[in-house]
């Protein structure tokens, strides 16, 4: 019981609901690391809930949630029943987890973590917020294990904003688990381990691999992998980069490289790198740190929350992922035009972002047009969320999945600093787009309904000025206060 907000009937008090269920351990993400943690927890006699957002609805996949699918999934991904089956069949450890007593919920996303702490004390306990295709709810946890993996890093170039430009993790997901890749011939961008193994996987799955493009002058990945790619007669295009993706109504048809080579492909696979999925940690106000060798921003030390697998940071092989992707970002930036789109959802161009200009539906009078990142920097260290709100880059339905990282890279480059000069824009709950009707608490308490008000519940606030200190004041106050609750 919280007595922290006095007797104010409109204060939060105890109105936030207790969780529907409580577990000793909640694990988010049913990849190998999450499964191992869940099974180990159950083995210690803990009550364990394991959730995984896959399979996610086809509509969300169309928005590149959670991976950069680039519109290259077949209609098979629209069959929810089949998708659930593929997830289950592709991971034998799921059955082992269930046998160990773990409660497993697939198609269930964890969209927020709420903890009492700075700025909030009204929660009955720490909770993780969940949603499946039918409803949202909250669950209490003793320990929280995040095994949310890593996601695709997108870096734009002319023509990247059309179907057929996708990420390596998304391709792997479509080729293996879902068997639902709609492309026939692909070009791989990048040549570190991720790119090389993606090329080999695609070849193994019968996809025509037109080549591997590398901005540096040699393949970056493991020598044996590079040799295997060569042995598979997949050509390398070294010291090169995609200058433009050219396409038609169905998206990419061919790509033109900086060197002038034109290659007919229907899919360009961005395999420059993966980004640890720190959305939940960041959105709960947790600590994050920058570690180039482990893939960029990774979770810091956060009490009560354990991160395992790729979301804790990629395996450190001594390769500086951040330096590598910055090199790519600089090169693709040079190949881009001012009107090359950075944020697809909000149609923000490079020039708009670097000019800190408002969206196109607003006018840009002369003083506005004279503003830029440079003028903003003169006022102090630029804040990524301020730039986000002014330009709208990252404010669309994909929640910045496609542009958050490249915006940070572009801003750092423009500010002549290393990655992190302008930090990554923050994540906010829900960390996955969720419909109002799913997110809604349709079972809210009478306490919440009765105590609801529009704004602070201070009736004197709304009395017309001329009626203050007159007999009419009380009448207004009563009429106003009576109508607040529903």
């Amino acid at each position, binding site marked *: 019981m919280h007595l922290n907000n006095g007797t104010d009937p409109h204060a939060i008090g105890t109105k936030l609901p207790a969780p529907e269920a409580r577990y000793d351990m909640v694990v988010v993400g049913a990849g190998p690391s999450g499964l191992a943690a869940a099974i180990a927890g159950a083995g210690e006699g803990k009550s364990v809930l394991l959730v995984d957002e896959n399979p996610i609805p086809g509509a969300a996949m169309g928005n590149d949630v959670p991976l950069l699918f680039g519109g290259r999934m077949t209609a098979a991904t629209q069959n929810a029943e089949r998708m659930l089956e593929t997830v289950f069949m592709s991971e034998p450890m799921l059955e082992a987890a269930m046998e160990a007593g773990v409660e497993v919920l697939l198609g269930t996303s964890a969209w*927020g973590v709420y903890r009492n702490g700075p700025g909030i004390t009204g929660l009955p306990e720490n909770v993780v917020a969940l949603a499946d295709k039918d409803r949202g709810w*909250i669950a209490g946890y003793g320990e929280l294990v995040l095994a949310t993996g890593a996601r695709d890093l997108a870096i734009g170039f002319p023509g990247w904003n059309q179907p057929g430009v996708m990420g390596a993790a998304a391709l792997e997901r479509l080729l293996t688990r879902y068997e639902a890749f709609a492309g026939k011939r692909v070009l791989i961008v990048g040549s570190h381990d991720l790119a090389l193994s993606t090329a080999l996987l695609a070849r193994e799955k019968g996809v025509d691999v037109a080549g591997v493009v590398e901005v540096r002058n040699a393949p970056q990945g493991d020598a044996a992998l590079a040799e295997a790619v060569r042995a598979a007669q997949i050509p390398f295009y070294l010291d090169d980069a995609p200058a433009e993706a050219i396409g038609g109504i169905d998206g990419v048809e061919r790509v033109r490289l900086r060197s002038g080579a034109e290659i007919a492909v229907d899919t360009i696979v961005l395999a420059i790198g993966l980004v640890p999925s720190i959305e939940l940690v960041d959105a709960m106000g947790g600590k994050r740190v920058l570690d180039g060798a482990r893939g960029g921003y990774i979770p810091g030390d956060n009490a009560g929350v354990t991160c395992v697998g790729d979301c804790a940071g990629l395996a450190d092989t001594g390769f500086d992922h951040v330096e590598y992707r910055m090199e790519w970002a600089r090169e693709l930036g040079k190949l881009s035009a001012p009107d090359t789109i950075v944020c697809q959802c909000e149609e923000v161009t490079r020039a708009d972002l670097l000019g800190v200009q408002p969206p196109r539906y607003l006018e840009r*009078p002369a003083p506005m047009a004279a503003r830029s990142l440079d003028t903003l920097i003169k006022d*102090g260290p630029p804040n990524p969320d301020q730039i986000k709100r*002014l330009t709208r880059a990252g404010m669309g339905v994909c929640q910045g999945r496609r542009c958050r990282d490249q915006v940070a890279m572009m801003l750092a480059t423009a500010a002549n600093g290393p990655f992190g000069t302008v930090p990554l824009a923050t994540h906010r709950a829900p960390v996955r787009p969720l419909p*109002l009707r799913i997110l809604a608490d349709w079972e809210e308490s009478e306490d*919440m309904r009765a105590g609801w008000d529009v704004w602070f519940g201070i009736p004197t606030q709304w009395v017309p000025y*001329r009626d203050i200190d007159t007999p009419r004041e009380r009448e207004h106050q009563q009429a106003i206060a*009576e109508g607040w609750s529903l």
Partner: protein
Amino acid sequence: MSYVGMPTPSETPQETMAKIAGTAAKMKVVIVGGGVSGLSAGWWLARSGAQVTVLDKGIVGWEASGRNGGGASHYQSPLFEEEQRMWPHMDELLGYPTEHQQERLVIAISPKQLNQYHYLAKMNNDMGYRVDLLTGDQVRAMVPLAGDNCLGGMHYRFGGHANPQRSVQAYAWALQDLGGRIVQHSPVTGFETEGGKVIAVHATSGRHECDAVVVAAGPQIQALMAKLGVEVPLAAARAEMIVTEPAPMMPIGGVDGNGLYGRQTLRGNLAYGGGPHEWLETFEAGPPARPSSPLTRNLARRVAELFPKAAHLNVIRSWAGIVENTPDGRPIIDRMKDPENVTVVTMSGVGFGLSPASGHAVRDLVVDGQCSFTDVAKLSLSRFDGIGADWREQRGWQPAKAELAA
């Protein structure tokens, strides 16, 4: 460029600007707090020729000023008519877009709500501000996202909304264009007084000499004014909002009701807040965090009820802001007696929409000692003289335990 439902202004904003030009020439003014009230005051003062320096602990508009519902329809305020006169001209006067849009609709899905809206409609019509009552069918014709559950509503033929972050930035940039200085990341550490006046403001950025000071630092006003021996009773609380992906544009985007405030943005997003607040301890350095809570779910429910035809839309973000309130929820706009060159402004949680007018009022107090366009006597600090130290307890506004909030 004025409203159907408001009295016709006697003067254009451009005429006002011409009138004030040069009236504060060479006056050095330090504004403490780069929120919307401080920035508007700074802008009005700079239009009057003053040399303005704005000091902010962080970046401009980063607290409640830049993250609120964007409403501009606060008919209860003595500043309201001035606000309504100014808003339609602000883009032009500032030189930057604010996304200001005119008029509002408030729609009911319960008989209780409808009763209250009818009361408010009459209250406004009595003041000469035109509000038209609407039937459910009329609402459905005007609000494509409304549903069969709508019982009716009201149409304010005045008021409106704007984009908070963009507007705050517009004030800040316009102030710079007039030669004003904005010093960010520069918390104020103290005041230097002499002869009953503040002669300099000390901040982490250094010593800033001044002829006048405006303290507009939101919840931090209390601690700042305490340094000058002036007690300003304020209590801060957290308020939360959510936003959806874009919906098809409605003819009037300023639609709320059902216990919510908010708007459809010019991009189409539905951005709404409301519901229980959490009283918090105030820290001189500012809020340690601005977390949202599972109240997101209750907000989602009410938005889905308000707009049944938008219930399928994805929520893509939630956020929170820390807002200060006075004991009666009304602003304090007052020039102190001692030190006599200090003016305090807090709008008690309703500052964004009224900002074009609050800045004018503060400019008048700083330059002329009195407000030229309306009576603000009932907004003086002295109304709280003798308020007990336990005023929060008396109202039941107990803050969260400090050790938890810190």
